[in-house]
């Protein structure tokens, strides 16, 4: 039975469970709903949950485990000599899967009967042509080992699916019967449903955490592989970034880290003053009408995809800077070689971060109690004296937190630097030179034809992990500061 219908069956069973459970509960109280421990619908939910949740969990696990199991069984059947030269067992297995899939499709489309499909053998028919007819393109003629393996693959899959259907249906019916039999007017269905909701919430929360742990672990393993192939002293303390896919690369993070921090620094130099002043204006001076119109407008900036900012850097800011500083420019100097530079990327990234800084700071400034402002105004301070000497110091820890969050976004930003900063890894203090960052190097090391066993590719994971640790550190620091600030007023 296809999975879709299986899920539909489960839903139908749990819907039936809801109404059945409800009716039985009302009947057990002889029609008097007030005698029941819980509202009738709770009894219904109880049966519905018991019929649905264990069964769907089993289904999900089965769907994950079955392919892995079959894969390992079938790949064991392919002898080593059946793998052609300059190919791998992985490629042969993908042929096996596609042939199996093709046979299933052929049955579905009526080209073969189920019996014929089971008995297909290489000699009698041109299987490659048959596969072509149902839309499965194969590179070679199908060899007998592959055909055998794919028949075994089909058999195992079919058996597995039948077993899955049976197990899931039984679990569902079992859950239904068990929950249905427990219903009695004193049964505390409400508490049971409450616990089920709690479990759901816990699952949702742990999913996010587990994913994070999974991401970190996968990066950790690849990073470990990288350090097995490349010396860690070169990575952390070397001075050159020169990947070479023929081997003998120098892969040091330092020039990339320098580029990253330099561009982020310029971005913050733009974003922090402008964002902060905008926040002060919006929260302290602007009238309600201006505020209700300007604040959303500013926040639209935050919704622009970073690739669009990248275009802006590439097409507008870069050429504009070049027309000032490059050869033949207005200033008559030759400080800039092309449109890409640290300054280009930094300026555009700063513009991207303005709404981020301003809307966080705006919230923090608004959280400063009005009583403090009144106190200062009541002493004869002007508005700007009040902002400078009372509101800002009170909001400062929160604003520092906001700036750190903005910094961690700047460090992790990719598209703007890909398009605006250039691709040359070097140490230079000149903001008009091209430089590159950690994120852009990750992209370039992993795109194109890559071999996941060379240090040139694996370095991307080491770079990613370093970046992760860096931004994590900044975020933790920011959260710590923001939290400390909160305690001051509550």
């Amino acid at each position, binding site marked *: 039975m296809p999975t879709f219908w299986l899920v539909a069956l489960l839903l139908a069973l749990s819907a039936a469970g809801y109404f059945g459970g409800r009716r039985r509960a009302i009947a057990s109280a002889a029609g008097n709903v007030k005698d029941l421990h819980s509202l009738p619908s709770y009894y219904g939910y109880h049966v519905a949950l018991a019929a649905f949740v264990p069964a769907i969990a089993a289904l999900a696990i089965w769907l994950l485990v079955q392919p892995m199991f079959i894969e390992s069984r079938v790949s064991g059947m392919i002898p080593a000599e059946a793998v052609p030269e300059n190919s791998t067992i992985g490629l042969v297995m993908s042929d096996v899967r596609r042939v199996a899939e093709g046979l299933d499709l052929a049955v579905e489309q009526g080209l073969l009967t189920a019996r014929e499909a089971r008995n297909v053998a290489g000699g009698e028919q041109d299987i490659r042509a048959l596969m072509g007819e149902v839309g499965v393109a194969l590179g070679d003629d199908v060899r007998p080992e592959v055909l055998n393996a794919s028949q075994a693959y089909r058999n195992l899959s079919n058996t597995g699916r039948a077993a899955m259907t049976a197990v899931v249906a039984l679990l569902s019916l079992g859950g239904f019967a068990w929950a249905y039999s427990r219903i009695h007017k004193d049964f505390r269905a409400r508490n049971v449903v409450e616990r089920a909701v709690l479990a759901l919430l816990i699952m949702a929360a742990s999913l996010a955490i587990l994913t994070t742990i999974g991401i970190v672990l996968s990066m950790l393993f690849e990073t470990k592989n990288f350090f097995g192939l490349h010396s860690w002293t070169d990575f952390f303390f070397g001075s050159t970034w020169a990947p070479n896919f023929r081997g003998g690369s120098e892969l040091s993070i330092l020039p990339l880290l320098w580029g990253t921090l330099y561009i982020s620094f310029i971005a913050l130099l733009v974003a922090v003053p402008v964002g902060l002043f905008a926040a002060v204006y919006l929260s302290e001076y602007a009238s309600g009408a201006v505020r209700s119109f300007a604040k959303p407008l500013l926040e639209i900036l935050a919704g622009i995809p970073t690739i669009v900012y990248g275009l802006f850097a590439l097409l507008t800011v870069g050429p504009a800077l070049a027309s000032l500083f490059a050869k033949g420019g207005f200033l008559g100097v030759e400080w800039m070689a092309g449109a890409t530079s640290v300054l280009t990327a930094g300026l555009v990234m700063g513009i991207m971060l303005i709404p981020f800084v301003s809307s966080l700071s705006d919230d923090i400034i608004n959280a400063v109690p009005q009583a403090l402002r009144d106190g*200062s*105004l009541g*002493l004869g301070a002007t508005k700007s004296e009040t902002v400078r000497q*009372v509101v800002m*110091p009170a909001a400062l820890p929160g604003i520092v937190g906001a700036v750190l969050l903005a910094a961690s976004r700047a460090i992790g930003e990719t598209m703007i630097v890909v398009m605006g900063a250039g691709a040359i890894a070097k140490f230079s203090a000149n903001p008009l030179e091209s430089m590159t960052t950690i994120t852009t190097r990750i992209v370039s090391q992993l795109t194109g034809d890559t071999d996941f066993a060379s240090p040139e590719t694996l370095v991307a994971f080491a770079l990613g992990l370093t970046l992760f640790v860096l931004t994590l550190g900044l975020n933790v620091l920011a959260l710590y500061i923001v939290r400390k600030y909160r305690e001051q007023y509550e």
Partner: protein
Amino acid sequence: MNDMTLMDKTVDTQKIKIAAKDVNVYYGDTHAIKDVNVEIEDNTVTAFIGPSGCGKSTFLRCLNRMNDTISTCKVKGDILLDGEDIYDKRVDPVQLRAKVGMVFQKPNPFPKSIYDNVAYGPRIHGLAKNKAELDEIVEKSLRRGAIWDEVKDRLDAPGTGLSGGQQQRLCIARAVATEPEVLLMDEPCSALDPIATAQVEELIDELRSQYSVVIVTHSMQQAARVSQKTAFFHLGSLVEFGHTGTIFTNPEDPRTESYITGRIG
């Protein structure tokens, strides 16, 4: 002080510090204050009493133009401080507020040290030429706020770390430090316990020797204890204004009597 001695209070007639003439206040369409006429004397504690929402706090905030910070608020009529209209275009509200200090309902020390809290006003207005002079102003103000002995050893500690009563006395010291001529107090004791309230009330009585004090209060006992003049507000109008003793023992208006005896409010 209790009600029996009210009549015996010495009530010298003082010079008029603030005179309000036909004051009307509007919040948008709401008519919050209606034709209020009142004369506040120097070196006197004047209490504004009345039920919640009667406009007494609004009127108080008109006296140092704190209502200017509310955009929908409009004030009509004349309020004269020493004979000068404070709503005149030539008057800078910021300068006015330095002359007419204010203490708020909830203690609101700045998140700064005790010293910096008190030094805030003098620094803004340039009242001290050097550090020594500033130290002197801070000490004098804290003494006048009756809190010097409690904080003199920890002037660098944050003002927010003090107890509620200490915070309020710090705020009074802070207001006194700018050397105002009038001190407005908007329910200064409503967030304090009885002991702290007693301390603040004692302080208010001492402040009378140098300032004209206007206090808004919900507690009629407090008004009777600390004030020489009392104004009773009801639904935005000034119902009765006179010597505290007269208001509490022999009110002219039946509404005043009802409020004081607890029948309306």
